[in-house]
């Protein structure tokens, strides 16, 4: 076990919120076709409120902090927030489309000791990227920003969301990442919009195309191991937990709502009403999430994939039950291994359903 894994396990066992994803705004300069966010400002936290949360998070033991959005640079105070976070010695990662990063911003990001900048790139073809972001010249601006950041010696990761409009481009985007000297990550997950509109799910790539992705050694490493049929779960597997959501990780929205994860829209409290640590430690919802072991899962506990599936409890919650299956992950397990999941078998399906209806994160109403 690596030192980092040991620390992660220790935090998990102690119930320390080691990592937090904080969206500082939902506003954005792009209008990506697959985005689940509503880009209006419904009362974002002020600079002072965010600084107060950061103080509380440092006190609670948070070490890894991801700033995301929306587009973080839509906030004029973003560098002030970033500097404050770094003074509190968080390890900071930024997720951005980078279109607003020029030489000066890149230099400042380096001065502030940011660990990694994750940047969305949808295609190596400008017209495809721009058609997805709906911002003319966004490809050119994003790639130029990556070059500025690299000139500063910063670590950059290209995040490539896979959808119907760009599904044939991922290998070329990977090559582009190599040419730019940056890391590459691919994600085929498309989620419904915040208002529950599921029309964006039509952008998901057909399940069959996942097979190609999962059998590409350049993306998954040891393909034989990655795609091997699942091993029967051990007792230890059944005692295990799904992921770090609620155990050592949580999400904070621009409005101060706290959730177990960015992809887990179960409201647990709001930091405008309660202290961060009180929500983390005493929220009944958070405690329910962290109580669920694999053996408690209604369908998945009897599934042969239970020990190797990427089952997301947040996506399962969006489908109706945090103890239920996540169809998107059933689909991934099936196309990765060719072995049907318990969820498919109980429905008599030879291929996974691809359009489970999901709910999505919404701002929590705060009583006056």
């Amino acid at each position, binding site marked *: 076990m690596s*030192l980092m894994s040991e*620390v992660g396990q220790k*935090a998990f066992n102690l119930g320390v919120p080691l990592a937090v994803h904080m969206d500082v705004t939902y506003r954005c300069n792009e209008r990506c076709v697959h985005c689940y966010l509503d880009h209006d400002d419904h009362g974002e936290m002020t600079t002072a409120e965010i600084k107060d949360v950061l103080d509380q998070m440092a006190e609670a*033991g948070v070490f890894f902090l991801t700033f995301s959005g929306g587009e973080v640079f839509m906030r004029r105070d973003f560098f002030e927030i970033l500097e404050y976070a770094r003074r509190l*010695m*968080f*390890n900071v990662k930024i997720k951005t489309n980078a279109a607003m990063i020029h030489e000066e911003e890149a230099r400042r990001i380096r001065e502030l*000791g940011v*660990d990694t900048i994750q940047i969305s790139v949808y295609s190596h073809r400008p017209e495809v990227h721009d058609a997805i972001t709906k911002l003319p010249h966004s490809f050119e601006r994003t790639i130029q920003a990556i070059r500025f950041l690299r000139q500063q010696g910063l670590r950059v990761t290209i995040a490539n969301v896979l959808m119907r409009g760009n599904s044939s481009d991922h290998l070329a985007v990977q090559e582009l990442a190599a040419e730019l000297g940056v890391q590459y990550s691919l994600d085929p997950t498309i989620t419904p919009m915040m208002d529950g509109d599921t029309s964006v799910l039509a952008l998901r790539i057909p399940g069959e195309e996942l097979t190609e992705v999962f059998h590409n050694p350049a993306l998954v490493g040891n393909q034989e191991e990655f795609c091997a049929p699942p091993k029967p779960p051990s007792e230890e597997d059944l005692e295990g937990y799904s992921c770090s959501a609620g155990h050592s990780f949580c999400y904070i929205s621009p409005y101060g709502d706290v959730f177990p994860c960015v992809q887990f829209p179960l409201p647990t409290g709001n930091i405008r009403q309660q202290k961060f640590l009180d929500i983390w430690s005493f929220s009944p919802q958070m405690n329910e999430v962290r109580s669920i072991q694999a053996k408690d899962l209604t369908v998945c506990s009897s599934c042969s994939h239970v020990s190797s599936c990427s089952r997301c409890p947040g996506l399962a919650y969006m489908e109706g039950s945090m103890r239920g299956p996540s169809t998107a992950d059933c689909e991934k397990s099936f196309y990765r291994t060719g072995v049907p999941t318990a969820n498919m078998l109980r429905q008599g399906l030879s291929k996974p359903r691809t359009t489970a209806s999901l709910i999505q994160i919404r701002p929590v109403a705060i009583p006056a």
Partner: protein
Amino acid sequence: MPENCIYIARSSAIAARALAGEMMVMNSADSTFFTLNEVATTIFQAADGHTPLREIVRDRVCEQFDVDPEQAQADAEQFVAELSSHGILLVSNQPLAAETF
């Protein structure tokens, strides 16, 4: 002031947080990651740039832990040299100003 007086300060490039009494430290420049034991954590937390290392060992380490003072000083110097080589601690024979962003 003795000739071998060493001053230490934390680099502004690092991230750090205590987890159950032990300090996690990461240097964003090269992603090196360390966890420090309780003694090393005490020294790290006292690295303010103007307290000599010898004083930190005498007033903090030897006060809090059951250690031989000479051995503690030698171990502290070795620890400081290692973290300095990774850019986590700044070392000087003169007081250091706090690094700013």
